[in-house]
């Protein structure tokens, strides 16, 4: 069996998909925008990019949990852990309500893995399972995770969950299983295809537009322009972790 035959087979399949994407791209403006940061399937994640998010807390609706629901759907968490207690069930993203003790000012915001540049979870992991991709996405390589939970101790954002029971019927794009630690991976599988993370897409579908996704290293990306114009804060900026997720209006 010559290799070129296989390559041709893949190429045919790839072309068919590209055509489908192109077809979709003609419709709504959002998708046209997404194709701008697409990489081909064969490309590796590159340090020329750093994916990040900007969350405007003033636009974030207090009662809305669409981003959480979208994440559950996209990555199939939140329903399969039937034995685990509520304290033991995984949460990749959550809505947090914060109240200023002095002023009583109440804010609501989504909180998930902040994709730190110098991530404590990556530093402490004994096996290198907790890792950062070249493009800044922090995630757990469950193939070599031994379930020691040291990363959970180290994360300042409580972004990580441990799987306390056997799981099944995972999504092909979101493998997750017993005895390993997991967290938001910024929907790496979507990002690799040039799409926005599911939470960002849901926020924009709900007409809130509180979440913006893009390349922090591309000075012309919408997120970079907005950050340059209005700034964006880090949660626990005192730790100096240079998070990939930034907030406005904190």
């Amino acid at each position, binding site marked *: 069996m010559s290799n070129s035959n296989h390559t041709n087979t893949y190429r045919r399949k790839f072309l068919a998909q590209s055509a489908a994407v192109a077809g979709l791209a003609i419709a709504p403006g959002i998708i046209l925008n997404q194709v701008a940061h697409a990489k081909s399937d064969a490309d590796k994640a590159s340090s020329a990019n750093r994916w990040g998010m900007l969350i405007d807390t003033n636009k974030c609706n207090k009662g809305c949990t669409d981003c959480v629901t979208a994440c559950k759907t996209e990555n199939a968490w939140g329903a399969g*852990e039937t*034995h*685990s*207690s509520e*304290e*033991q*069930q*995984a*949460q990749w993203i*959550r*809505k*947090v*309500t*914060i*109240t*200023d*003790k*002095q002023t009583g000012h109440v804010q609501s915001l989504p*909180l998930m893995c902040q994709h730190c540049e110098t991530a*404590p979870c*990556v*530093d*402490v*992991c*004994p*096996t*290198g399972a907790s890792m950062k991709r070249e493009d800044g996405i922090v995630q757990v390589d469950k193939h*070599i*995770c*031994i*379930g*020691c*939970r*040291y990363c*959970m*101790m*180290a*994360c*300042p*954002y*409580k972004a*990580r*969950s*441990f*799987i*306390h*029971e*056997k799981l099944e019927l995972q999504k092909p794009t979101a493998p997750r299983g*017993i*005895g*390993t*630690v997991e967290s938001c991976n910024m929907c790496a599988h979507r990002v690799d295809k040039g799409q926005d993370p599911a939470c960002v897409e849901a926020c924009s579908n709900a007409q809130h537009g509180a979440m913006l996704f893009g390349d922090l290293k591309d000075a012309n990306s919408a997120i970079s322009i907005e950050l340059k114009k209005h700034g964006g804060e880090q*949660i*626990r900026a005192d*730790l100096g972790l240079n998070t990939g997720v930034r907030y406005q209006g*904190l």
Partner: protein
Amino acid sequence: MKKAVFKQIDGNSINYWMLLALLGSFALAAVGAHFYMEHGGHYVTGMNNQIVWGLPHVFAVFLIVAASGALNVASISSVFNKTAYKPLAPLSTLVAIALLSGGLMVLVLDLGRPDRLIVAMTVYNFKSIFAWNMIFYNGFFLIVGIYAWTMLQRNLNKYSRIAGFTAFIWRLALTTGTGSIFGFLVARQAYDAAIMGPMFVVMSFSFGLAIFLLIVMATYKWTDRPLGDATFNRLKNLLGVFVAGVLYFVVAQHLTNLYATEHHGVEAFILRDGGIYTQLFWYGQIIMGGLIPLALIYHPTTGKSRTAISIASILIVLGGLIQMYVIIIGGQAYPLELFPGKEVSSSFFDGVVNSYSPTLAEALLGIGGFAVTLFMVAFAVKIMKFLPESLADEAVDPHHSK
């Protein structure tokens, strides 16, 4: 001074076999607990996504820290050349290795994927203090093993000084590394302090010596071998100094934290408002594990009583376990400070004190660590020449006169 004569214990009494059977059944119970926890997952434990390290870690870290401390006696004899400690040096290495084995067993059996231990042993992330510790622990077995060998085999005796010195440096690194597991956690208010490393070193001195002293007293009593006052007093006075040392570090740790406003929350939690953790801290760690043993050791009457010193040693061990509980569980129970100056609430238990109720399985796994340690010691002294026939004063003390 006579040269110490080392001899195996007889170990053929009913009581000896009963002891082995008892320890063996606790070890088996721990293995059972492990299979129970691993079979369906950790949901059967009290641990969760807030309290990610539970009772097994309390026992494991305690035993690992104590392992380094159990080496005290050997270190003093080899590194500081105190001949009076020489007869007990081989036993000291044995107890150290046994404690580390027990502790590591608990740690490993609590992993989410213990089946992948080979990954932890072959793939290292050198920025992780955990990975360093993996090397420290494995190296400890090797170095202390060689050290014991140089002491037990006569023609290797000349190397025991250098082996002992290496072991001494290595065990200091090991305990500092273990303390730094917590010291390096920038995210958590209760940890993230350089003092954790040195504090764990002093804790190791105290816990390790307490266990060692208990083992010596029990072994010599049960085998009818003489244990003279000279050796006994030396060990118990040293223990007193170490207990005081631990108290000093605890005071220093909390005073430093009390000075910085950002740590007031967590300090108030441990010292005043933490409910069970506050009670454990004051009654368990400070009074039971610190002040009472100190009084028993240094009081003119109780200080001479073997029973009183046994009780003091047991209290030090219990107090040490409680101290680990307060550090490990208490430190996680206090919520992460995500937004300083703001109240936080969410579906993921942000901003609330996290609760933890340990289960029987976790306790059995932890206690199993002790059982494995003691089983190893009891078995090894029967098959190998670790124990001097006599620790009577005239056999030990070069200047002793009747």
